[in-house]
């Protein structure tokens, strides 16, 4: 399983071994679950290679914090908050058991999970909404925080810039994580970004900005952890650029003829999962046998979820909910509470 990689950055060396192992297992789950969705739905969005950013950003938050995951690889956040994996797979397939009951492409769950869902195909508006969650926390004087991820391409949307400015002016408790995979569908970042490092955009908004190796999950998590602590302490937002690479296509069946195979191969050698395995085995925190057992456990969980989801009927037309466009005025408001139901154990 493990392959030799470049040396670790050394960042995150202070992380507790249980956290480091949890991060590895979170990456394994993200890899296996998202890959299963891609195999079943050719229009699902492969997150392969970017798990270091995804796990590093959303692992270890408090139960009452809010997460706003990017559309590429969103399900780990839901799993962390106790989502039923078979309902997540069902959601990606438009099955009746999906949390959105066939209404949304795929990224939603019960309000209690405290996750900003993905209900439209545009990019950038979730950054504004996530910033609003942080505004709500600031307004109520709590120390809850929001972590929001988005792609490198999305940092060219006006919504990114407006939200960062607003969050900084109001010192909102939010951490912005750019899941930099170098591609806006077929366009390489160098074609659409006039700067090498997105993190320098933070300086225009008077907030700290830092660039980390997105394929080093420990480095990502260490940076996010520090930024979360800063936000919780009332010191305002941070922009973290986590540089990675999209190993798959934009969607699962994207032939991707716009990329050089040798570049892809080079990035496959920097895969964040074997890299973390190598570090943990080297430090003696895990044996190869432990690693194999972790893979087995994750694969069994995902296989079981896929079996359940595939057996489920498609979303039913009678559940279309034409009369469920509006919330009932007579009922109380349902709001994101950020409580776990039955958490996925890392």
């Amino acid at each position: 399983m493990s392959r030799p990689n470049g040396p670790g950055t050394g960042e995150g060396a202070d992380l507790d071994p249980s956290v480091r192992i949890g991060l590895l297992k979170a990456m394994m789950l993200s890899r296996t679950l998202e890959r299963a969705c891609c195999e079943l739905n050719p229009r699902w969005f492969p997150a392969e290679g970017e798990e270091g950013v995804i796990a590093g950003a959303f692992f270890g938050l408090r139960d009452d914090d809010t997460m706003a995951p990017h559309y590429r690889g969103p399900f780990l956040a839901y799993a962390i908050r106790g989502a039923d994996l078979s309902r997540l797979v069902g959601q990606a397939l438009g099955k009746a058991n999906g949390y959105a009951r066939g209404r949304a492409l795929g990224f939603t769950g019960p309000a209690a999970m405290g996750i900003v869902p993905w209900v439209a195909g545009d990019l950038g508006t979730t950054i504004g909404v996530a910033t609003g969650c942080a505004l709500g926390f600031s307004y109520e004087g709590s120390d809850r925080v929001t972590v929001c991820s988005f792609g490198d391409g999305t940092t060219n949307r006006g919504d990114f810039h407006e939200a960062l400015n607003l969050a900084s002016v109001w010192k909102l408790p939010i951490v912005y994580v750019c899941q930099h995979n170098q591609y806006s569908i077929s366009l390489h970042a160098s074609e659409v970004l006039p700067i090498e490092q997105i993190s320098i955009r933070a300086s225009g908004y008077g907030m700290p900005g830092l660039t980390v190796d997105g394929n080093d999950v420990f480095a990502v998590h260490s940076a996010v952890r520090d930024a979360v602590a800063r936000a919780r302490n009332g010191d305002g937002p941070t922009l973290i650029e986590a540089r990675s690479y999209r190993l798959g296509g934009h969607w699962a069946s994207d032939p991707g003829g716009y990329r050089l195979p040798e570049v892809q191969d080079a990035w496959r050698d920097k895969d964040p999962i074997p890299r973390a395995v190598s570090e943990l085995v080297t430090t003696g925190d895990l044996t190869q046998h432990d690693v194999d057992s972790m893979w087995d456990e994750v694969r069994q969980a995902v296989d079981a979820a896929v079996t359940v989801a595939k057996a489920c009927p498609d979303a039913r037309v009678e559940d279309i909910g034409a009369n469920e466009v509006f919330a009932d005025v007579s009922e109380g408001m349902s709001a994101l509470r950020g409580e776990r139901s039955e958490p996925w154990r890392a």
Partner: protein
Amino acid sequence: MARLSFAEALVEGMRHELRTDERVFLMGQDIGKMGGVMGGSRGLIEEFGPRRIRETPISESAMVGAAIGSAMVGKRPIVEISFGEFLPTCMSQIVLQAANLHYMTAGAIDVSIVVRTRIGDGPYRGHPQCYESWFAHVPGLKVVMPSTPTDARNLMIAAIRDPNPVIFFEHMWLYHGVREEVDNSPTAASLGKAAIRRVGRHVTVVATGWMVHKALEAAETLAVEGIDVEVVDLVSLAPLDIDTIASSVRRTSRIVVAHEAWKVGGIGAEITAAITEACFFDLEAPPVRVGAPHHPLPMAKPLRDAFVPDVNDLLRAIRQAMAT
């Protein structure tokens, strides 16, 4: 009871909810020391302070996004977009996020926000665009346009309490142009209902905002000629209270629809289509629409006066409906 202008009544509605519900706050530009554009938030900063009356950067999209997110975590924000002309800058948040969230999450999330804005040909010779029909077109949004101080107060309270996104249009000519006794009892109106402002037998005129007052003026003129006009104040563009309009048309058998927005694709087009479907055999004349001509609003006063529909356009339209 207090004698209030439309603008004062709007502020009273917000003040009532700010006093009674800690979850409510207001954000927008110039709503603090300046008291809001045209006094639309006057006195609130003094009573509630900058935490709840929040001055924002010129970032309409972030403002609406921030409102949606704070509603998601249980707050009841009001966003003030200074003028309707700026609505296109926050369209994606309103249309893609606010309108979709409840349905797309199968009811998991409510978006209790109010987006208030000023429309109509105001005193500035600028910022007048009437884009309200765009929002009525989108499922998931409630769209309100009051025409009286009482409705301004009560519908503002109802909009803030509603668990859905409400786009609240405030016509600028009404702001200081109408004044009436407003009951300050806490009873809130319900959204989604039209109101009959004048009972008449011969023709139904459905109007929005300032045009309601022009329609009442036209009705008095025509009464002298023996034409008895019923005036329906649409109040709510979404949901559309077709039942109230249809029952009026079944009595009068004629309909004129009037708004300041462009006639092409305006809410009047939807109303006349819906009424034609519902009441075709009750109609004795084709429906007549009054709206702005299909070109941008010019600036100079003579051009502007020619553009904005007025009482003469209404008189002409009503006489046309009566001629058949």
